[in-house]
């Protein structure tokens, strides 16, 4: 009896050791929204960041049958939905596997989760996580404060789609003692005068992420009037910086892939099983347009130093 008891406890110890062991294999399914460059770039970078042989990546076709293909076996198995389409498809065919949504905006994630009751439950249970693509409103503000420390008046325009940014910015600017002016422009409004008037009364202008049409319909006026009134513009993409913004802060598919890879590697190594709660990215790229900086008569700006300053301001908050 005692011999059998010893055998039993030995097996139990071995079993427990295996189960709670430091390395367990992980099947990670990657579901892109389509074949376009941004998603492909993300996937390629993610694969390049693989650090553990225990991680088994499987890239699915955008139109893959999720129910048929995804049979989770390990606790560490994961489905990474890349983009809005991919998350929508995942939620409509919710396989029994944790889901990490990436390359998705905060509003898109919230909207899609809100449309699927079961998804809300899974979210509460920590079975769905997300790393948003856009920056938190505070980060644009901290960049503005870093490039133009004397600035007191912040201005921006937004469409109704982006009004959430405004709600986030308002208390932040009050906290920082800044005067925040904004205008919501609908598709049928004349954008030129609103932007011109705002720009005239701003020390820094934030060009926030918005719909393609809104950006294309307003970027020209933002850049023209920014130069006219000599107001630095903070943009949300590399192209905005190239087009004439003083600086831009954004997360590229490569940045998102590296951050996602870190999360997957931690999960696979057993260091962290729980998915990250939906939140803004920690990785981002900062670009300064030095030509614009010269035109505005500003001292040379160093991207790395700006990043350090922004990170410090974020930690303080």
């Amino acid at each position, binding site marked *: 009896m005692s011999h059998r008891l010893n055998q039993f406890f030995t097996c139990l110890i071995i079993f427990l050791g295996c189960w709670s062991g430091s390395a367990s294999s992980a099947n990670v399914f990657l579901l892109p929204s389509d074949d*376009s*460059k*941004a998603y492909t770039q993300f996937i390629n970078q993610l694969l390049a960041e693989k650090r553990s042989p225990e991680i088994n990546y499987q890239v699915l076709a955008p139109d893959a049958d999720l129910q048929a293909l995804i049979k989770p076996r390990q606790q560490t198995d994961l489905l990474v939905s890349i*983009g*809005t389409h991919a998350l929508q498809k995942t939620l409509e065919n919710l396989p029994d596997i944790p889901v990490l949504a990436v*390359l*998705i*905006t905060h*509003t*898109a994630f919230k*909207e899609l989760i809100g449309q699927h009751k079961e998804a809300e439950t899974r979210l509460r249970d920590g079975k769905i996580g997300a790393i948003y*693509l*856009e920056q938190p409103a505070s980060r644009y503000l901290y960049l503005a404060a870093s490039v133009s420390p004397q600035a007191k008046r912040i201005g921006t325009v937004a*469409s109704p*789609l*982006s009004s959430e940014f405004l709600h986030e910015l308002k208390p932040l600017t009050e906290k920082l003692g800044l005067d925040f002016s904004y205008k919501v*422009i609908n*598709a*049928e*409004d*004349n*954008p*030129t*005068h609103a932007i*011109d008037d705002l720009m005239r009364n701003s020390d820094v202008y934030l060009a926030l*992420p*918005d*719909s*393609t*049409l*809104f*950006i*294309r*319909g*307003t*970027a*020209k*006026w933002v850049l*023209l*009037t920014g*130069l*006219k009134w000599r107001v630095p513009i903070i943009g*949300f*993409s590399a*192209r*905005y910086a*190239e*087009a004439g913004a003083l600086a831009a802060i*954004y997360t590229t*598919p490569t940045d998102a892939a590296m951050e996602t890879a870190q999360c997957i590697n931690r999960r696979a190594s057993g260091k962290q099983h729980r998915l990250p709660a939906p939140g803004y990215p920690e990785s981002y790229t900062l670009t300064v347009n*030095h030509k614009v*900086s*010269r035109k505005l*008569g500003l001292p*040379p700006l160093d991207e790395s130093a700006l990043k350090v300053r922004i990170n410090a301001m974020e930690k303080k908050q």
Partner: protein
Amino acid sequence: MAPVKTFRLSYLTSLLLILLPGLCSAVESMPDAEYDFLTEQDLLSDMPVVSSVTGLDQRTADTPASITIIDRQMIRTSGAVELADVFRLVPGIQVYHVNGNRFGVSMHGQTDEFPQRLEVQIDGRSVYLPMLSTIVWTSLGLDLDSIERIEIVRGSNVPAQGANAFLGSINIITRHPLQDNGTRVSYQNGSQDAHNFSLQHNNRLGPVDFRLNASHQENNGFSNLKDGMDSDHISLRSTYSPDIANQFELQLGYSHDIIGVGDGDRPDDFTENKFATSYQYLDWKHTFSDGDQLGLHFYHNQTRMNDRTSLGLLSDLLGGVNPAAIGQVEQEIIIGSTNNLTDRYEIGLDHSSRLNESMRLFWGSTLRYDRLKSDWLLDGRKPVHNRQTRLFGNLEWHAFSSLVFNAGLMYEHDQAVLTKISSRLAVNYHLQPKQTLRFSATRAHRAPSLLELERSEIVRFVDGSSADIQFITNPELAEEDLDALEIGYYGLWPDAGLETDIKIFHEIINNGIDKAKSRVLPGDLIGAALINDNISNFRTHGMETQIIYRPDHVTRITTNYSYAVAKGQRVRAENDISTLKTRVPRHTFSMLASRMFNTGLEGSIAHYRMSPVKWLGGSELLWQSRTDLRVAFPLSDARIDGEASFVVQNIFAEDYVEFQVNNVFERRIFVQLKLNLN
């Protein structure tokens, strides 16, 4: 012929009828976005970067031709008093004074007093004058301060901009009314008894933003020549954006110019040409929710020219001989006309779209109508006209991240030369993100202009008989043909503040239109008649380079150099065959260096050199060298905001000749005061 013409007109009408409903429905019902909230596609989508020469917004490294951009700083620091002078800073372009206030702007030489192989557009409107087959720079009504930038395409751009862009194009973009505010006045005084006054006012009228410009310019031209100018312009640019997706623009302008013109070899024969030029331009742009753009434009240019000149009494012209000796009565011999009138109407549609992630397409269609009325240029015939239809497109394909293809096609049909198709294929290979190699091949055609086709200048006696045939046209005049190859390199070193563009090119022009000579025409009693004909065939090869160096944020040095060699023949008559190698300067160099000092003082120096050349119809010119200096300082206190500047052109007084021997460019000094009244 009639059935063919009818068919083609019906074809165009059908095309528009097919397209318009589709376009209208596209406008009325904007494509619905799949989601009504922000997605990653909105954050990752493209934004326009650089206004381009293919109709697509393209980075310089992706364009199929070499481009030079002259920005406001370069215009200002060059010290240029006239717009044409600015183009001395473009490799491959030569600028010369035909007269004191008449300019030739030439790409790769082979030009006379009326250079005709370069298209010039202002905000998308062609300002090429069908009546003279050239650009009358002083009648454009442009204040240098109202120019935002100029994009020069150095190489044939026919596939995108039509026949006149045979060797290149100049695209002038004026400042948007929203870019400035208030009122600015400026006054410039200087050599040649120059007085140049201009006023600009920017304001808002309800939802419309506008810029009003008015100017007066006068000077005496070259010393001892009657080639002065008296010129007045007024223009309006207004924009209206009713919503995010739509922009409307209206431009109006009027110029009245009196310019002394003549052959510099005969200073006593100068006359006054009076121009009255007006234009109306309407433009609409619509942006779709996916970023595609649709444009519709209409413009009308009109120029009236009065070049009526009396050569004097017949008896004086006959050296005192009684006109009865030649069967004529005493009479005044007149050349030119008071009623030269040309109109150009154009309506056009264009569309730019992203076909997929790697392909973009710009395509469009224009209908153009040119009309010329002139007793002198048409020898009393009824007004002549030409209708031209164009269909064009440029496809950009990013085959790989480092490889870009551009394919451009232009279909032109007009009444005179029927159908021509011009094309261009270019490959841009990005060796590294900021180092690009470009290979480009172009086949283009330039149809004769209305004047080249119809010109008939005959001096007649009062009885209608011909005294002197000055100018006619070969009724079988055909289009010019161009084959061009180009290899280019574009490099950017942002950390070093360096940007460079180098290209080598080879151009073959066949059937070049020029003036043949004939002494044997019936009715031509005096001298040789000139005949518009296809008499030149030549090749030009060479190299052009531009280097821009910005060591810091206050200093800029731009250096340009071009090397060009031409080989070919110009057959003016059986016994008058010339090579063309002296018709393009082998070396052209320019440099502009500017610096802004701590006190706000801005200093700049420009240097120009050109090797010997003999422009068609001009004198033999030796090496030319000129250095200009400009110093400007701000005027700003509680009451004034402005700038005072001092320009010396040809500071070392190395007098040189422009185009003809009597056009001596001496040292010139100008002082200018600009005030912002806000």
